């Protein structure tokens, strides 16, 4: 499954769009663009992102 998968938010019926979302970890906050429901704002994290870039950033922040 790629990040390009077309997703609909079942609650709002809206197609997800890419938007800046805030993330926080180990007392640090930062933004990243991920697919988001334009109505309710719920973000989608793909497996590729979770186990790839996100995992890398987790380790970087944990090591600080």
């Amino acid at each position, binding site marked *: *499954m790629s990040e390009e*998968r*077309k*997703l*609909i*938010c*079942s*609650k709002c019926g809206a197609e*997800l769009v890419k938007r800046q*979302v*805030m*993330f*926080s*970890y*180990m*007392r640090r*906050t930062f933004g990243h663009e991920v697919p988001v*429901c334009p109505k309710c704002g*719920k*973000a*989608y*994290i793909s*497996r590729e992102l*979770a*186990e790839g870039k*996100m*995992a890398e*950033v*987790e*380790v970087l*922040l*944990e*090591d*600080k």
Partner: protein
Amino acid sequence: MELKDTMAFVDDCIHDAPASCECACPYKLNIRAILKKTARGRFAAAYRDLRDALLFPTLAAEKCPRPCMEKCQRIAVGDGPIDMGAVERYLVKAGEKEAGQIFSQPPRDKTVAVVGAGAAGLTCAVSLSRKKYAVTVFDRQEGWGGGLRDDPMFPVFAADFEKQFQGLDTEFRFGTEAEEADLTGFDAVYIATGEGGNDFGLRESWDPALRTTSRPGWFMGGGVCGEGLMESVAAGNILSQLMEAYLMTGRAALVVESDAKSCEGCVLDHPGEESKPAVVPADPEAGFTKDEIRAEAGRCMQCQCSICLEGCEVMAHYLKTPYKLAAEVYGDSNTRPPFSNCVATRQTYSCNMCSWCRDACPTGVDMGELFRFSREDRWKKNKWIPGLHDYWLRELDRNMDEGFYASPGRCGYVFFPGCQLAASAPGHVESAWRFLREKLDAGILLGCCGSPAVWAGDADRREKNAALLRESWERMGRPVIVTACATCAERLPEMLEGAEIRSLYEVLDREGAPVSALPWNGADVFDPCSARKDDAVHRAVRSLAEKAGCAAGSVPGGKCCGYGGHIRLANPELYGEITENRVSASEKPYIVYCANCLEVFRSRGKDCVHILDAVFGPGPAHAPDLEEKRMNTVRLKDTLMKELENKSYKAPAEPWDALALTIPGDVRAAMEDKLITDRDVKETIMTAEAEGDYFVDGDGMRTACLMRKVLTYWVDYVPEDGGYAVKSAYCHRMHIGEEETQ
């Protein structure tokens, strides 16, 4: 936390200590460096090292009794010591063309008088002259040398004196018996008048450590104080530092303490070191040739203890010395983000805490204890990483709740199988308990020893766990604990004061438990790290294996299987390397007696059985998954309660327990790898379905998300008849949103 708190863990480390030869050397010469350079043929560089430390290298080359050779560790390997005398003499010859040492710095305005131009006086004089103090040397004789003037080698020594003083502005007043009046104008005075020489009435007040006398600025040393020749030269060297400190600050003190560690130095066992006999010159008259002296110096083993750095995968991966790590652990405790950050976090959470280093270290330094200290400190300061230990802490909580059971009544013995054996081989636990009940009238206590809390640094959980165990153990009448898990055997005495611990395997062997054949007639026993030094349990397990018709060897190493310290999520690559090294340590199949070792080795496809398979019949053929482990524990508790209390037990149910899932093998493997349980998946799906809150794609695949306090779970799934087909499950530690809930 203070620096001394962390340094206390590594105080005894000898990695940076001088070698035994260097400790014995009166000059604390860096013998290893000199021999290394000599062996490489870098004679001029080696000579300069010698000259800078000895000041008059010829004198030492000829006169030093060489206590270093007595302490050469080549002797322990069965060879003769390295002939340091020959090396020094060769270097002195090779360095003939090297000039004396000159420092490029402006003259100083302080004046120093040295009374006596013998070895002690000249050493002090040359050293202070190089530092550009105005030094005047007095001697009643018509030249330098003092007591050495009668030595047959004196012309050689005199030539060296000449060479070393070349280019210095030292003033010599030979033929001058220095009177007190001659000395009053100097800022500092060194009395080195030799044996029986004039002590100016100060001998009684002499301080041998600081070389001071009752008269401010007047120092004394050498033969006049009863010191021998080499001692005098070494003293002159130290004295110049003391005098310089006095001239600069008005107080005599060493700026850098000499290697204060009582100096046995670094003494190693050198296992496997090949013998290299002493090199004998082909022509004794001509002495060592260039190649011969290089070969002789090349016999130096460069004794430096790096046992932990070479032997432990974690230490080898990061290559930080124990001292450096202790300093970093202190630093990490006192960071001020964003101005300073931690530097040893990953290593701290990558340590198996198996104490292999402690047992391999000549002085017993335990890096695991340092990391345990650090993990507790990070936890207390909320600088820990909950996501790395979340699964195991939740498992611990379950094992002390739905998995916890203490048999009713008092007993003289209690069986404490350990949570992992109960989870992975409940049949063995039940059989072992029946055996112990028959032989020893033993009760049973199911639960966790608290190691997951210790490894996470979670002091509250550890104490809560200990209190629960203590309460049951006390109620049972403080029985002798028979345990199947070496980690529990190590941990329980920390929390149950006065508890007597026995190994199940020793009891089984001693009581003659019947055994049946193992699948092989030859295998290697993998002793768990926590039983590394327990010879009695080693013997018992091998005895059981032999009785089962299996010749039992040993997997060498005594290291952790990889499970210890719960490093798997903190450092998956290193965990992979460690577990691979363990399964390939021997080609034979393994016999283990630790449920964790069994789980780790089976997960890597190693042929492996638990020794209890020989006693109670084969255990489960495959490693149970996370959900099976949980249910095994619950069912075992139910069985025991039915038998002992005529009650049944059901684990507290959650609404999502009844959800039917189809999980393909590859998805299951990925879930196991990330420690995602069926219950995590079920809760994620049910919560999303209940609220209609999920994402869906054109193929009808849904994606649900569950944000827990520590981890966020995601599940891709498709509804199917009466349940859900799971396509993928993953999680992350990062929090979505600005506020972190941890």
